[in-house]
């Protein structure tokens, strides 16, 4: 009935349906306010979830926070049997593997981004970028699989030669067991390099042509233009991509767990096995006996959360301040 009234053109717009009792669906269709409120609930649920996340991490780590305070981060004894928990070996392993991964992936990623943005024809560049972004779609656990069965056997053949010439350096000495900080860093560097490439490429492409032409007019070579006029102009976005990759490397779990060896020790040698925060959570969480043990692991999660949030927030701020160009990370 209501439908015939609605479909008749001569009924004035204001009085449509007002003489009939509207169904819930009709009110919903017309009621902008209702739609507004429902979608608002969807949007605000993000804030609720994030709030709950912080609250749960805080509450469920209280036993450990009260028992160890800030010493938790710098003590190196991790002894679940006697209830003594110090996270230094994990903090150390996380920092070392992430920094080494960045040291490998920044030059390579930036180089590839420069090639794709400045040198390659746009069609080729788009196709290659699509391929490289496929690397980012490969799940972490598959990188771990490749790490165990392809990378580590290869490293077993390469590392002894390497140690023959550089073994006198404290960071390269010691017996190589395959699983090590070094193996984890290589896997991590492969995992973050697509992010550095795709974001830096976008940022480089968005640098105004006038910036390039001005330097070219001064007689500079292509490389001079790129290195002195284009890259400095894009440095905020590039820094953003690096912070984003750092946050990702710090929180990366499965691939690292599978190749780092999972030994709670601190070694100067990169060839030694170690442990990271994310790896110890993944390995010990379901075996945690007793509340203090569980709370200590959740406090590790809290630490990881806070640190990755800081780097993510920095990355977003850097990218927000880049005017006129939206970069999706």
């Amino acid at each position, binding site marked *: 009935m209501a439908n015939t009234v609605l479909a008749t053109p001569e009924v004035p*717009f204001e009085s449509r349906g007002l003489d009939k009792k509207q169904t819930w669906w009709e009110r*919903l*269709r*017309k009621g*902008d306010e*209702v*739609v507004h409120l429902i*979608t*608002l609930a*969807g*949007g605000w*649920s*993000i*804030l609720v*979830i*994030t709030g709950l*996340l912080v609250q*749960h*991490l805080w509450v*469920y780590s209280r036993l450990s926070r009260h028992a160890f305070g800030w010493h938790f981060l710098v003590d190196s004894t991790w002894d679940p049997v006697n209830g003594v928990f110090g996270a230094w070996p994990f903090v150390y392993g996380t920092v070392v593997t992430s920094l080494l991964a960045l040291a490998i992936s920044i030059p*390579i990623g930036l180089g*590839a981004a*420069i*090639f794709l943005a*400045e040198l390659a024809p746009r069609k080729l560049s788009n196709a*290659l970028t699509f*391929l*490289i972004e*496929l*690397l980012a*779609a*490969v*799940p*972490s*656990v*598959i990188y*771990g*699989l490749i790490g165990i*069965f*392809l990378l580590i056997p290869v490293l077993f053949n390469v590392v002894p030669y390497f140690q023959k010439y550089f073994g006198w350096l404290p960071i390269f000495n010691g017996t190589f067991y395959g699983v090590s900080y070094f193996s984890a860093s290589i896997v991590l560097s*492969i995992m973050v390099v697509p992010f550095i490439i795709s974001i830096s490429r976008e940022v480089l492409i968005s640098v105004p042509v006038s910036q390039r032409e001005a330097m070219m007019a001064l*007689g500079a070579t292509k*490389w001079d233009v790129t*290195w002195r006029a284009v890259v400095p102009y894009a440095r905020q976005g590039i820094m953003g991509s690096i912070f984003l990759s750092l946050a990702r490397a710090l*929180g990366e*779990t*499965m691939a690292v767990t599978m190749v780092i060896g999972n030994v709670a020790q601190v070694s100067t040698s990169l060839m030694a096995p170690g442990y990271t925060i*994310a790896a110890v*959570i993944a390995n010990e*969480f*379901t075996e945690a006996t007793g509340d203090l043990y569980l709370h200590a*692991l*959740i406090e590790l*999660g809290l630490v990881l*959360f806070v640190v*990755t*949030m800081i780097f*993510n927030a920095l990355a*977003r701020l850097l990218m927000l301040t880049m005017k006129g160009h939206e970069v*999706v990370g």
Partner: protein
Amino acid sequence: MSASYPPLSRKIINVAMLALTGLCTLLVLAVLLTILGYLLWKGASSLNIAFFTKIPAPVGQSGGGVENAIVGTLKLLALASAIGVPIGLLGGIYLSEFAGGWSAFTIRYTTDLLNGVPSVVMGIFVYTLVVLPMHHFSTMAGGIALGIMMIPIALRSTEDFLRAVPRSLREGGLALGASKSETIFTIVIPAAIYGIITGIMLDIARVAGETAPLLFTAFGNLYDSPGWMQPTASLPVVIYNYAISPYDVWHQQAWAAGFVLLSGLLVISVVSRMVLARGKKLSHG
């Protein structure tokens, strides 16, 4: 100024550095092809019918498959989509059509931060939220973990595609006497639907490979998991457990599972991009 400018030394640096950037690109592509090729070779050679139809065989026996993990992954993804997609869609519509000022900024920024939370931390969160009160691991908990992880990307990609709809379309709708909500549901969303679907499919592909959050929520299971309240096996967790095991038979299964998982993800990813391209063609004539 000399006759030839720039000087030879800078020309050499120019060529050397540009060649180096090309080498960097080649290196990354070579790594990509090695990974895909090796997985294809090892995975395809380990595949057989039993892999898809049987549950795992006891240790030491050959044969068996991961039928329970494949079903488990599909169930987890269905539940995750049921949670993540509606919330993401609504939030995206809110950001694009209603929100403004500080509320839009806060939600957008928080969404991006939530997207950056390490997946293992998300696992801890859902463990304390669902598993502790229920006292056991379950498909439900795993689905909730993946669902929460889906929200940020579903929301942001929906918002982006809605905002790309031209303002003139909205004004056209309003000028014809449609209310704002009618305009949104009959004009704006249909105009952006291909993009929205693509975003959601890519989102599903992304969480399908997540392992860490499932370790303490869905856990694992050697058998089929009926209903939603029991622990369940899933492809990523099976890959992890088999890869770190000492048995060759299980390593083969891990390769096969990795191959199946990655092919699934790549097919979703490529098909959804084709859907997007087709949608663009349709809407442009």
